[in-house]
């Protein structure tokens, strides 16, 4: 790569650090959404700036919605916007933020630092109960709940998506996480007979 050019290398792209790692599919499906648009703000002024843009902020550890984006409140001043399929809306907010004067928080670089994966499939509940110690049954963990906990022994943020669970975690653990999910799925298969 020539000096001065910035190329985004996501974990499962050719040449990426986890190149060659297999994402399991079948009764448990793991898919990689790491290249999907998102934007995180953190630090003093983040919440006030987003609220001033008309973005309704949910309570801590809850998910809100704004123009097709999911608004994740990870802390009082730690907010993440997920814009799967609504990239233009997010770009508008990002441009506005870049042009705005402080205080406006700072970018938490979630689009660079975090991997975003989705776990689904017929044996989802079984796999998730092996990966995470929390009670994530629907009556305990709703569609707008966020759990900041451990999934597959690594620090992660997890919440429901229409097809399963989304998991956000340190991007450098991508290959490890894919292997951990595959191991759990394989283990469940073995014991099913």
């Amino acid at each position: 790569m020539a000096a001065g050019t910035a190329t985004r290398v996501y974990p499962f792209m050719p040449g990426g650090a986890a190149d060659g790692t297999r994402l399991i599919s079948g009764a448990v499906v793991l898919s990689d959404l790491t290249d999907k648009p998102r934007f995180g703000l953190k630090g003093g002024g983040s919440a006030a700036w987003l609220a001033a843009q008309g973005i309704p902020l949910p309570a801590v550890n809850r998910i809100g919605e704004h123009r097709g984006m999911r608004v994740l409140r990870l802390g009082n001043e730690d907010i993440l916007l997920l814009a799967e399929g609504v990239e233009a809306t997010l770009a508008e907010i990002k441009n506005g933020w870049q042009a705005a004067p402080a205080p406006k928080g700072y970018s938490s670089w979630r689009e660079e630092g975090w991997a975003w994966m989705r776990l689904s499939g017929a044996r989802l509940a079984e796999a998730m109960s092996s990966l995470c110690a929390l009670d994530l049954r629907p009556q305990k963990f709703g569609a707008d709940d966020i759990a900041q906990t451990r999934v597959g022994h690594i620090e992660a943020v997890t919440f429901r998506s229409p097809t399963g669970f989304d998991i956000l975690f340190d991007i450098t653990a991508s290959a490890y996480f894919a292997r951990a999910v595959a191991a759990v799925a394989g283990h469940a298969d073995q014991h099913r007979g």
Partner: protein
Amino acid sequence: MKLLTCPMNGPRNIDEFQSFGPVRARPDPNATADRDWSRHLFRAENRKGIVIEWWRHVPSNYFFLAERDLVSNEVIRTFDVSELPERA
């Protein structure tokens, strides 16, 4: 499994937390003798009683306080920094 209740995230495996030691007054560097500085930096208290400690919930990077009995190791309560008496 030992559980600790995070004021922000609820009850979690103790494995998700990191301890940062007791809340202590910071001595004034200009008015503290070397002997006292040395004690502050290198000596740990070893008393019986109740201590208020800093803890961090690692996955959410949330720092909070816990009141713990040093004899029974029972955590009496956990609370947000804003509730610390000297800061209120």
